[in-house]
């Protein structure tokens, strides 16, 4: 599969074969990295990270991935310190930055910005989050994490917990999981249920979907519990937020009912939805999940650069 020059904008653009290809490439790179300590595939290549809104973790993960591939990184982390503040259009920023780089990673507060950037740029563009729309590399690292923990995705019972209405990560994760033979448990307050059109699409694609607001009633069934934060900034109305704030807390007591093999995931950062006491249990894999972002992003960078 030749990915040279390809853009990574939306998980919608991916087929199951694409996803599997990225996951197996990530696995290969992780192994090579462990053996050699440092890789040279992207030597001489430059990544530009354009973060029009701050997201330190995602930026560091991409930068780490590029460095581990032997490449180098330029970029800005806040639009207010760049020419964007002077009113430069996204189009012009991209046309300028591509003169300096071989691949661009963009994070932008407006939905659709990454798609536009990709249309403007000659070099490949990777979306690191555009508003509340897409964050495809997060979804790929989530799938990679599940696959690494269970050596498979098919046959698993996966619970998505928290804000399923506004949560970008759970929407695209659910859509990607629809390629696999999984059962999905959608666990949220009534007000924050998964949008109907996504639930319908999942069912049409053959996924068994259960919707509930009662975590304790279903936790014993699950292989994976994917926890998300209820994000204040996504709520149009503060009153609405206050009603559901702190609806769930995953702690050791809740986990008593869980299967031995249950894995708890979280895209991080968390606030209070997972108690720190869970960190020490064998259920917690959210920090390994963070680590997995690096090989997955190495795979994507290497593939679109055409160097691996």
């Amino acid at each position: 599969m030749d990915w040279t020059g390809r853009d990574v904008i939306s998980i919608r653009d991916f087929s199951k074969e694409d996803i599997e290809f990225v996951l197996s490439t990530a696995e290969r790179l992780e192994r090579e990295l462990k053996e050699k300590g440092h890789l040279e595939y992207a030597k001489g290549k430059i990544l530009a990270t354009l973060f029009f809104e701050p997201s330190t973790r995602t930026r560091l993960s991409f930068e780490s991935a590029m460095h581990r591939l032997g490449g180098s990184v330029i970029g800005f982390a806040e639009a207010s310190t760049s020419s964007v503040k002077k009113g430069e259009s996204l189009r012009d920023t991209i046309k300028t930055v591509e003169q300096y780089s071989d691949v661009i990673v963009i994070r932008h507060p407006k939905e659709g910005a990454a798609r536009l950037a990709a249309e403007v740029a000659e070099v490949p563009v990777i979306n690191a989050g555009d508003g509340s729309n897409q964050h495809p590399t997060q979804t790929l690292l989530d799938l990679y994490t599940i696959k690494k923990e269970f050596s498979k995705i098919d046959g698993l019972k996966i619970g998505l917990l928290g804000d399923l209405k506004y949560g970008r990560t759970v929407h695209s994760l659910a859509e990607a999981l629809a390629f696999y033979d999984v059962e999905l448990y959608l666990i949220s307050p009534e007000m924050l249920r998964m949008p109907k059109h996504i639930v319908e699409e999942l069912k049409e694609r053959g996924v068994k979907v259960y919707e509930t607001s009662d975590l304790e009633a279903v936790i014993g069934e699950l292989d994976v519990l994917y926890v998300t934060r209820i994000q204040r900034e996504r709520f149009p109305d503060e009153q609405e937020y206050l009603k559901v704030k702190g609806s769930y807390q995953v702690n050791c007591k809740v986990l008593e009912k869980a299967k031995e093999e249950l894995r708890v995931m979280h895209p991080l950062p968390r606030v209070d939805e997972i108690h720190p006491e869970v960190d020490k249990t064998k259920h917690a894999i959210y920090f390994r999940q963070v680590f997995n972002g690096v090989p997955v992003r190495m795979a994507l960078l290497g593939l679109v650069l055409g160097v691996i």
Partner: protein
Amino acid sequence: MTELKVSAIREGTVIDHIPAGKGLKVIEILKLGRLSNGGAVLLAINVPSKKLGRKDIVKVEGKFLSEEEVNKIALVAPTATVNIIRDYKVVEKFKVEIPDIIEGILRCANPNCITHYEYVTTKFYVISREPLKVRCHYCERTMEEEEILANL
């Protein structure tokens, strides 16, 4: 049933079989209220129709529609037929059709969509015709009929 008499036009376009009540919207989206060639625009509302029960008809003197305009009509009045008139005769007649991709004629209903902030031609994929549903190429938000009509 008495045939409703609306004066014929010598040259121009007759948009027939518009769902009753949508005729004004057709005039609005084609900006026919500001027709620059001085030609007459005739609107008939609630005309009896065998096919639709009731229908609206719009006649435009001295104007032929672009593909973009025909696509706009399709979104508002999917049942419409377009008749091209020359010398008082219908020389061509076709049904409007909603295209698979709608480019340029629709604004995105998502206020946070990049298309409202940058110089860019909007683009939507038609994901369902009945009921009408489209997805923005940029922000991926879907819009249904009501939002589509409000954003033409």
